[in-house]
């Protein structure tokens, strides 16, 4: 059982519609392909100073895994999410 924390970054304090879609796509890919992956979802507001100090400037909707910005600027497709997750599970 591998554990992963996936942070979805958006422009507001709550999930805006694009972030929600991103989260749904990630969830769907994990639930169909990576059943033995334990995932924690978090949300951050990328326009807040704390986030900018930590990650620099990001373009929402973005995904951060393990302190690495893995995707930013658009809602990812399922195949892209797979590639990203494969990268993290192979390491």
């Amino acid at each position: 059982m591998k554990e992963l924390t996936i942070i979805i970054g958006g422009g507001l304090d709550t999930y805006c519609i694009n972030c929600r879609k991103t989260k749904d796509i990630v969830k769907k890919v994990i639930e169909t392909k990576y059943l033995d992956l334990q995932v924690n979802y978090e949300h951050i507001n990328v326009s807040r100073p704390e986030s900018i100090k930590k990650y620099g400037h990001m373009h929402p909707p973005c995904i951060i895994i393990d302190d690495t910005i893995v995707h930013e600027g658009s809602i990812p497709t399922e195949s892209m999410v797979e590639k990203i997750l494969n990268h993290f599970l192979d390491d």
Partner: protein
Amino acid sequence: MTKTLAINQMSTNNQVIEDHQKNGIKEKIRSYFRDRKQKIHTVIYFVILGALLGYFIYSKIMMFIDPVPTEVVDYSIYDWYIIPYVYIIDYIKHAWNTLSLAFMLSGIIYEFIPKSVVKKRLGGGKFYHYILAAALAPIFITCSCSVIPIYVGILASGASLGVAMTFFLMAPAANFITILMTGEYIGWNLGLWRLGGSFIAAVVSGIIFDRLRISKELRKQFDNNITHDSNESSKVKRLIIDKSIHERVEIAYKFSWDLLKTVLPRLLIGLVIVSFLIAYIPDEWIANYFTGFLGIVIGALLGGPLYTPTLVEIVVTKSLIFKGMDKAAALAFMMGQPYDFVSMVPNSKYFKWRGVLVYTLVFFITSILIAVIYSLIYRIPL
């Protein structure tokens, strides 16, 4: 007892291995079909894009060779409940090509132009930064929750507040759909004048705003909130995944589709309202209040407070021109879009009310000036 257990275990082991093998084959089949599906989708996307573009070019050429005069339609002859229906059908007949093209192209611009281009080029306060901000604004069609991050991004790259203001003023006027629809539906003449006028007004607003003390104060405030040491920023890693053309097409197509789903209901409601206005506003009103110099001033005054979603505004303007509004007054009306009341509230957060006042005045005066110049050039009586 042990033997049976052993045999049971063996059979379970065998079963497990068989399942894995089956999964392997199933997976291969599934991924084969998924790849085919992706490729087919990409091809279909480009075929549709090509067809729309082809028809667009073809119809432009035909209009050039053999121009068709616009027919005058009087909508008041229909029963009131038929009016919106007829109007919308007419609209779709004229605009389907441009509208679909505009949405598809927005998706392409969204996906295929890297957003980091802005981050690299806008720092400092030199003159050309304002021009660049105004020129790049069309690229940034994004969801409303991205406005703050874009603002932060522009400032973080070192640009001054005035540059950010120029950007935000050009973005609604210069986004791709607006340009295409204005040109197509109202006329490229008016469309380009509107673009040029908004460009000038936006750049001037930015420059003036930067001369004010408030701009430097806001800048200092921003820098204080967001100081990050270079140590910290080097800790941030970025993972760059290669995006295949199929994935990019999928993102572009989904963006276009989402945009359509958001815009279309508002467009339809706007069209319904406009259809009633067109049918029932008496022509004398238009002749009295929307022509000549008075028309220009009234156009500039109305264009601001009258909050209309972009595409609706284009339809309203076209209909008013239809009923006899001067083109110069229409120009002043269209240029008034940035200072509508609804966007003043969020803008006051970024630029304070002084900033809002600056751009409102600049746009108001520029609209009138440019409209007057237009009437002088095109011999429209003032």
